[in-house]
């Protein structure tokens, strides 16, 4: 079972990972965007971590919804509404639960990804964060359905996210700022897909402990 402490750890750990990768994400965004993705994510998760003490004794649904709302109101750009929606929808899907089964987590991730897709009107293959998130969710389901435990399944999700992230390199962007580049977007890894992979990697590290 995933406890709320684990979720708090996940978010806190992701904040640190973002800090460590701030320049890297910004560099990726310089190539095909506007050089702010690192700063945006860093600002957002700093705010989230500052907010956590006020909700860490609430249910996990509330923690995730608060995370989403905090991101919406502090990040801006494309990332703010999209990551915000991810967490808000994920939280809504498991509303009221103080603990999550592995399947609950998969359901929450699914709801989050569906939200991102709905908000941003993108589909996988357009060189966005969906290219890490979608295969990650699929891998999580497949692994859990095959009977693997949470740790193994999250590792599979992270591996799929990483592959998805790398797969954005040869893609032509057709959504977001990178789409303005047309052919010139090819050959660059998408910053949002990268921050999404890091999020799933953190989940594997923090949520799949037992």
């Amino acid at each position: 079972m995933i406890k709320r402490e684990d979720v708090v750890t996940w978010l806190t750990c992701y904040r640190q990972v973002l800090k460590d990768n701030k320049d890297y994400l910004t560099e990726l965004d310089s190539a095909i965007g506007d050089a702010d993705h690192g700063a945006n994510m860093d600002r957002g998760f700093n705010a989230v971590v500052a907010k956590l003490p006020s909700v860490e004794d609430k249910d996990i649904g509330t923690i995730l919804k608060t995370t989403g709302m905090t991101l919406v109101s502090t990040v801006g750009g494309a990332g703010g509404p999209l990551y915000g929606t991810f967490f808000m929808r994920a939280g809504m899907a498991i509303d009221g639960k103080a603990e999550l089964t592995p399947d609950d987590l998969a359901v929450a991730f699914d709801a989050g990804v569906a939200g991102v897709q709905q908000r941003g009107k993108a589909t996988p293959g357009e060189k966005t964060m969906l290219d890490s998130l979608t295969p990650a969710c699929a891998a999580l389901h497949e692994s859990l359905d095959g009977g693997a435990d949470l740790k193994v399944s999250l590792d599979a999700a992270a591996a799929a996210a990483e592959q998805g992230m790398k797969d954005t390199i040869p893609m032509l962007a057709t959504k977001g700022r990178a789409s303005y580049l047309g052919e010139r977007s090819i050959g660059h890894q998408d910053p949002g897909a990268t921050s999404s992979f890091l999020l799933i990697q953190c989940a594997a590290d923090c949520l799949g402990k037992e």
Partner: protein
Amino acid sequence: MKKLINNPEDVVKEELMGVALAHEDLVRVHFNPDYVVRVDAPIEDKVGIVSGGGSGHEPMHGGFVGMGMLDAACPGAVFTSPTPDQMLEATKAVNGGAGVLHIVKNYTGDVLNFEMAAEMAAMEGIEVASVVIDDDVAVQDSTWTAGRRGVGATVLAEKICGAAAEEGKSLQDVAELCRKVNNQARSMGMALTSCTVPHAGKPTFDLPEDQMEIGIGIHGEPGRTRMELKTADEITEILTNAVVSDLPFEKGDHVIAMVNGMGGTPLIELYIVYQHMVKILQGHGIFVVRQLIGNYITSLEMAGCSITLLKADDELLRYWDAPVKTAGLRWGV
């Protein structure tokens, strides 16, 4: 990175403090969430007009808040669209009961955040209309992109809609007018140098001494094509012809023209571009009847320029000529 700043994190707050201190006769600045609002907002029965976007494009949008133009502007972090809560608070602050128009530049971030803000405002019972500006001919408007970017036409739309709202036009009419401006305006820009986002600390792109970027956006996003540096006349031809042929503007058209500096280009060069643009337009039988030449929608300290043309009729010219009193644009009062 050579900038007159302190901590990169504080750039927007400190700029807003400057605006608050400098223009207390025109605007109030609200912090957390951040927005700049007309000193006399809300104005009863007047449509409120809110715009916003990432910072770094000054004077747009905060410099266009005041009588005859915007009621409020929401500044995001540098080159990052603001958040829905800023937009919601600004919308509430300017709602005088006649509804609020959101003028949104077509960037995924701006569109998504304004969309969420409009949903929230609707939940609070405020009537909101949104118009997305997408005038940048450098971007192919196809299913292969997020659509054309919103650039120079935003300035013209804010001026013209501001005048209509001031005159007492309804939300529907002001929104319709805004769409008309967007439909009749086209822009294209170019860069000689990159800008440097403060927290990135180095130029967004490298542009060799002998190269320029054509069709650049206003965030240092690379443009349509990179090419060998050319003369002002040649550059003006590339931009003007791309803009003219897109609408297309036609023989006999009267236009409001803006030759806009990207922040790092001196006025002397903008006038050189302007005079050649007028000559090219004359060749097409197009007449410039009003003009703006200067820094209106910038990309930090980027060197370069953009050209915007708006096909004008009597209605648009009347609103254009109406009084405006903002830090960035002022006449008739």
